[in-house]
């Protein structure tokens, strides 16, 4: 196996937080779906620095997915401001959402086509991207011939094909088995590092958040807003079993439970 070029390509700029421009800035965002119903999000503030990996956790219905949709530009907030450094953030769903009539490579190529990449380049670029997610030689396969983990990696390659500096992920690994999920955690960490992406990762798996994020943001429910956040100082390489990951997950879970039980009173 050849040495990966990432070591060479890694950006050399200093990464003190203060100097990094924001990739995503959410300011006082509220979202009301129906008049008279409580807002899904209320006065939510969140800033994601360029190159940062932020995990959003919270109970079901805390508006995590709504927030991602807003950042992705698929919906407009009722009030507040959202600015994103990338013109069009890439978004991955819980389902791979691959188009079943296309091959793995065809799915990636469609994203390139939407970006206006020429026909000749598309094939080669798709091949390169599939190599990035360790799917070299699988490009000609149809979606139904791929396992769940492989599909999600094709979806990741498709998201990378958007060439956006911001990657939004909506519980992308929730439907996978634990072994595959572990492997993809590492894969994602590597891709994030190599490509210098800013990632907003939504999950309700607290341990996953502690494993992946540089920062974990806990959202409260009804209305959704930031309750608390943690800077994650656990050194890489991490695994889901890393001591620090477990300890942090315990702490976040305790806070999450406190937040959830507030609603039962």
């Amino acid at each position, binding site marked *: 196996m050849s040495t990966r070029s990432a070591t060479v390509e890694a950006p050399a700029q200093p990464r003190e937080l203060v100097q990094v421009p924001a990739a995503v800035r959410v300011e006082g965002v509220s979202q009301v779906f129906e008049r008279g119903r409580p807002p899904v999000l209320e006065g939510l503030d969140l800033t994601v620095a360029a190159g940062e990996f932020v995990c959003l956790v919270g109970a079901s219905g805390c508006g995590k997915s709504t927030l991602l949709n807003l950042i992705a530009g698929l919906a407009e907030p009722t009030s507040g401001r959202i600015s994103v450094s990338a013109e069009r953030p*890439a978004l991955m769903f819980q389902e791979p959402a691959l188009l079943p009539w296309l091959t793995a490579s065809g799915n990636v190529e469609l994203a390139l086509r939407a970006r206006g990449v020429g026909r000749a380049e598309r094939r080669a670029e798709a091949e390169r991207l599939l190599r990035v997610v360790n799917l070299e030689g699988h490009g000609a396969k*149809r979606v*139904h011939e791929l*396992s769940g983990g492989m599909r999600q990696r094709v979806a990741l390659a498709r998201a990378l094909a958007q060439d956006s500096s911001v990657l939004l992920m909506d519980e992308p690994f929730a439907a996978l088995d634990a072994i595959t999920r572990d492997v993809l955690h590492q894969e994602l960490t*590597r891709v994030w590092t190599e490509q210098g992406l800013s990632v907003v990762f939504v999950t309700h798996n607290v341990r996953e958040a502690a494993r992946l994020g540089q920062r974990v943001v806990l959202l409260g429910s009804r209305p959704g807003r930031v309750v608390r956040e943690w800077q994650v100082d656990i050194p*890489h390489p991490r695994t889901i079993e890393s001591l620090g990951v477990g300890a942090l997950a315990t702490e976040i879970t305790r806070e999450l439970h406190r937040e959830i039980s507030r609603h039962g009173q």
Partner: protein
Amino acid sequence: MVSEDSRGRPGLALVDRGDVENRAVEAGLDALDAGPDLPAGPGPGRRFVRSVLPPLVFLALLVGVWELAYLAELKPSYVLPGPADVARKFWETVQDGKAAEAIWTSLSRGAVGFGMSLVIGSLLGLAMWWSRWLRAAIGPIVSGLQSLPSVAWVPAAIIWFQLSNAAIYTVVLLGAVPSIANGLLGGLKQVPPLFDRVGRVLGLSALGRVRFVLLPAALPGYLGGLRQGWAFAWRSLMAAELITYSPTLGQGLGQLLNIGRELSQMSLVITSITLILAVGVAIELLVFAPLERRVLNRRGLTMR
């Protein structure tokens, strides 16, 4: 000590070793998940025994019963001719070129009629999908038309267009267009909303989403509609040909059937029916079945 930059980004050199291991595990998982190659389908011999032989055996039995009934003289022979008589008539019709002429006439009418229905039905289906109002307004009528036997249009068509090809095409269109429009509409309605979101996330324009996402996603339903549309077009065509008989019109299979009736020639009637059935089955087997199989295979939707 682990090398990290100030913001907790993994030190690249150190992650590398974990990554190499990770990739190995990943490749192993991929290989395991992909599973062993599926056993090849049954060989030609097995396939023959499984799917070609049974209908042949059944057909032979049917002819046997028919022959027995004929030998027992259950009915006079002008009502129930024997299989041999019919076979003779069939061969005669094929030999003097009447069969080929009738098949050609009907098939070309069918193709033209189906082609027109394809264009009109597809546009109508798209329009109904596009406009909620239009769907509400004409949806029930289009669905209703599907259950109206198109032979009911023949008298009207003859009054409008006399005994002409226009009358025949009118009946074919009224038979096939609703199926095609409804098939496309149904296919479009079944497209998961997630696919459209994918198109939007990827930054495809509205037109691009229709072309690259929506229409391909609707293809299986659309194909079902086309298949049914062809069946209805063929039936309608036969109904129309059976009634619109005129020396100025080309002689199709329906007209051949009508000649048999007028001459009280049961063997010609059965010959015509056999030809009509054969053409319908041939189009189904040669055009629609392979097309559908290909589309479903690609998407992994084939039932075994």
